[in-house]
């Protein structure tokens, strides 16, 4: 086949050239802002922790693809990311345990909490839901980035 180079197994290690890198440098902040918006407004608009977290992870994966594995591995420490994922899980669990005196997952912040108890439809409302969305967003983001980097790193045995 003409125009198709044989696979060297090192495609993930090199970057994708100046044009892609420049475009990625411009778009990554916007993707990040959009993802953060989806996470923070999870209790008001369609979306939430998982969707926003995957959008954020999309920015990370774009970075990985555009700049190559070497650059990405400088920024991503897998151990730290897996610890961050653990933090996300723990925060979620902690939010669920806040209303433990009534029931597991009881939304005590909403019923008689000091904050997050505003009118429905405003940003500071819905009790523990914003906290949970943030926790899930963190967990999904760090999990996806760690998964993408690990899968990219898998290919190196061939080189």
């Amino acid at each position, binding site marked *: 086949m003409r125009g198709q180079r044989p696979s060297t197994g090192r495609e993930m290690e090199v970057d994708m050239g100046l044009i892609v890198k420049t475009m990625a440098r411009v778009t990554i902040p916007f993707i990040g802002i959009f993802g953060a918006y989806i996470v923070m407004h999870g209790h008001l608009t369609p979306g939430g922790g998982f969707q926003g977290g995957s959008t954020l992870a999309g920015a990370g994966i774009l970075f990985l693809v555009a700049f190559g594995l070497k650059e990405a591995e400088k920024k991503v420490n897998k151990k730290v990311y897996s610890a961050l994922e653990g933090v996300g899980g723990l925060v979620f669990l902690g939010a669920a345990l806040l209303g433990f005196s009534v029931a597991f997952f009881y939304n005590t912040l909403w019923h008689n909490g000091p904050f997050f108890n505003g009118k*429905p*439809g405003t940003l500071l409302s819905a009790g523990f839901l914003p906290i949970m969305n943030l926790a899930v967003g963190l967990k999904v983001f760090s999990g996806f980035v760690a998964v993408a980097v*690990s*899968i990219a790193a898998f*290919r190196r045995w061939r080189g």
Partner: protein
Amino acid sequence: MIPFQYITSFLLIFIGVYALIYKRNLIKLILALDIIDSGVNLLLISEGYRIAGNLPGTAPIYTGYETLKGVPMVGPLPQALVLTAIVIGVSVTALAVSLAINAYRHYGSLDIRKMRRLRG
């Protein structure tokens, strides 16, 4: 009269099962699993669809607007279920892809007919 989205979802499930039985490439099998998942998710989400008069349902988010205008909301529960099912599907797919990469390392091929060393 069966609604057409039910037919579509069962069609998707059958396509997935067909591919799972007759395809030999590991990546195609993973895609087949994803197609089955999509079929089931489509069935679940279409169960929550509501229509009142000729007004189609809107997103199940409480802001006060819908109740004023009398617009029906679609069922929120199936949406929550489908979201969960999608998350589960993503993690299964991620794990399956990493297994496929490892399988390629050991067998030099993604053909499942070559993975027949376990016997007896």
